[in-house]
């Protein structure tokens, strides 16, 4: 399990947004490791801080009020947060790249597909226009797009949503990044297209050995795609571990709740389970465990004091007082 080396290590990351209406703590004291060649799933409800975690790693806060206020993001032995903007730009799109949720709006409507992919190549590799174009055609073919030669001269509006997401994947992978961050890459697509895109990502990963951070709200996708999983709730990590272990024996009541709300094949139930209550308003956060108000197993201490991480070895941790038999992580 731990024989592979960590390509990315996030330590105590906190990212806040400083809005007119106050500070929003989008990510709070988050730590995780990404092993080389593996896929880490970050799962949680919308607003749990998954996407902001991705943006923190990419350093894409320009034009927003967001800022990493604390922590380290260590990539290949360097803390990304200590690099200059110019150095980070050299890593973005080359060593670490990202696919976004909305393929319909994530491509520039007035530039040709070929131009949009090749500009990344020209930026990061010392190649000319025609050579870059050859690479573009090759990577587009790898994504299984039809009539690639004409697509490079087309505009985004001429493609379907699934085709655009393939273009986005091609764009992210064209410089052979070491890490690919996929932020809900299938959420906006039709169900049949979703399966195709997931399949494509799996194939490309097997071939290139890229490490992937896969952000999703669906545990089903995690089970299908990931080796490790990180469950987030209210800007915090709740549980981490190997996917098989977590699915077999979820430690945190929130993870159990998430799993209970997945419909199972061949099992008819009167009503699908839903976690009671709502995600708390970020301005009125509970004092203790953030999940306590919705937790059926909450104890007195849960409302009073936020639990620390309890470590069970092999990357398994849980932020829950019920798990206090594990080793406490300071």
């Amino acid at each position, binding site marked *: 399990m731990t024989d592979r080396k960590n390509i990315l290590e996030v330590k105590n990351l906190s990212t806040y947004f400083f809005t007119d209406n106050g500070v929003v703590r989008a990510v709070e004291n988050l730590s995780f490791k990404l092993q080389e060649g593996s896929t880490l799933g970050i799962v949680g409800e919308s607003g749990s801080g998954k996407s902001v975690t991705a943006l923190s790693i990419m350093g894409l806060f320009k034009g927003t009020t967001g800022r990493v206020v604390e922590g380290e993001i260590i990539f290949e032995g360097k803390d990304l947060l200590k690099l200059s903007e110019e150095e980070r730009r050299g890593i973005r799109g080359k060593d670490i790249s990202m696919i*976004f949720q909305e393929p319909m709006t*994530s491509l520039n409507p007035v530039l040709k597909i070929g131009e949009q992919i090749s500009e990344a190549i020209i*930026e990061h590799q010392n190649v000319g226009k025609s050579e870059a174009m050859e690479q573009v055609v090759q990577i587009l073919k790898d994504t299984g797009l039809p009539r690639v030669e004409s697509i490079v001269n087309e505009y985004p509006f001429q493609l379907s949503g699934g085709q655009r997401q393939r273009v986005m994947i091609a764009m992210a992978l064209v410089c052979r990044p070491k890490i690919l961050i996929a932020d809900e890459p299938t959420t906006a697509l039709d169900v049949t297209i979703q399966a195709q895109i997931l399949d494509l990502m799996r194939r490309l990963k097997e071939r290139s050995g890229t490490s992937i951070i896969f952000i999703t709200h669906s545990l089903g996708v995690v089970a299908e795609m990931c080796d490790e999983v990180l469950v987030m709730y209210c800007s915090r990590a709740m549980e981490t571990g190997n996917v098989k272990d977590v699915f077999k024996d979820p430690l945190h009541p929130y993870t159990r709740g998430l799993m209970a709300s997945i419909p199972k094949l061949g099992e008819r139930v009167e009503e699908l389970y839903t976690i009671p209550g709502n995600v708390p308003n970020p301005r009125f956060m509970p004092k203790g465990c953030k999940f306590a108000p919705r937790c059926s197993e909450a104890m007195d201490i849960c409302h009073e004091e936020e639990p620390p991480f309890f470590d069970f070895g092999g990357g398994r941790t849980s932020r829950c007082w019920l798990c206090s038999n594990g080793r406490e992580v300071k």
Partner: protein
Amino acid sequence: MLRYLIKRILSAFGTMLLVSVVAFLFIRLIPGDPVRLMVGEDASYETVMNVTRKLGLDKPLITQYGIWMKGILQGDLGTSFRTGRPVLEEIAPRYGKTVRLALISISWSVILGMLMGVWSGTNVGKWQDYFGVTLTVAGQAVPAFWIGLLLIYVFGVRLKVLPVSGAKNWKALILPAFTMGTSMAATVTRFTRSSLLESLKEDYIRTARAKGLKERVVIWKHGFRNSLISVVTVIGMNFGAMLGGSVLIEEVFVYPGIGSFLVSSIGLRDYVVVQALILLLSAHYVFINVFVDIVYAILNPEIRFE
């Protein structure tokens, strides 16, 4: 694209047809007897009858319109009552001067406006932005004829470095062109700024940054390129105001273009000339809008490929 183009040009001709009706009715809408107004109260009955016949005002309206249109299509805009020369001959040299002035004004104001807009929009909350926004707000509110007078005072009277009237050389064009472009520059700055801010919020900007592109490339190639579409529309919309404004600027700087010609012709009740000028200026405006729509289509692939 071709179909769009043809459609757009046909609709422009449709508008022009309606405009021509309005311009045609112009003399006929003047209360009382326009011929009396033109020739003066103490002209003889004979003179009045002569002018009436010359203008064709004694025939039925439909016939008059037919004759007038036929003339226009043959390049005959009528005869100036004041000079007795064909209107076209009177207008032609003045027209060239106005076009030259307008082209210079629009060039500097659009280029400067776009640069200022991007400069302001990429420095939101800093002094550059406050500077840009203040200039914009002031530029849109300032009366052009007032700016013109102040410039005449400063550069012509005090510093004595620039000519304040006429169109003899390029120096004489500086002050009028600056005055004429002020409001356009402010408008272009404002819209470039706001539409750049809009497009910088788009998802594809985040994609461009995620590719590791230089900020300069992100702003100009991805942000500005997209905001250009709406900026071009605004330029087209404001071009009419600029053409109208040329009347004022030519008055202030005694510039021998069609604007000052229009004003003096109205003063002298040379209605045939006024009618022709109104038709000409509108035709201009209508076809410049067609041109703007075509540029718009070129910038926007979704329309181009329709």
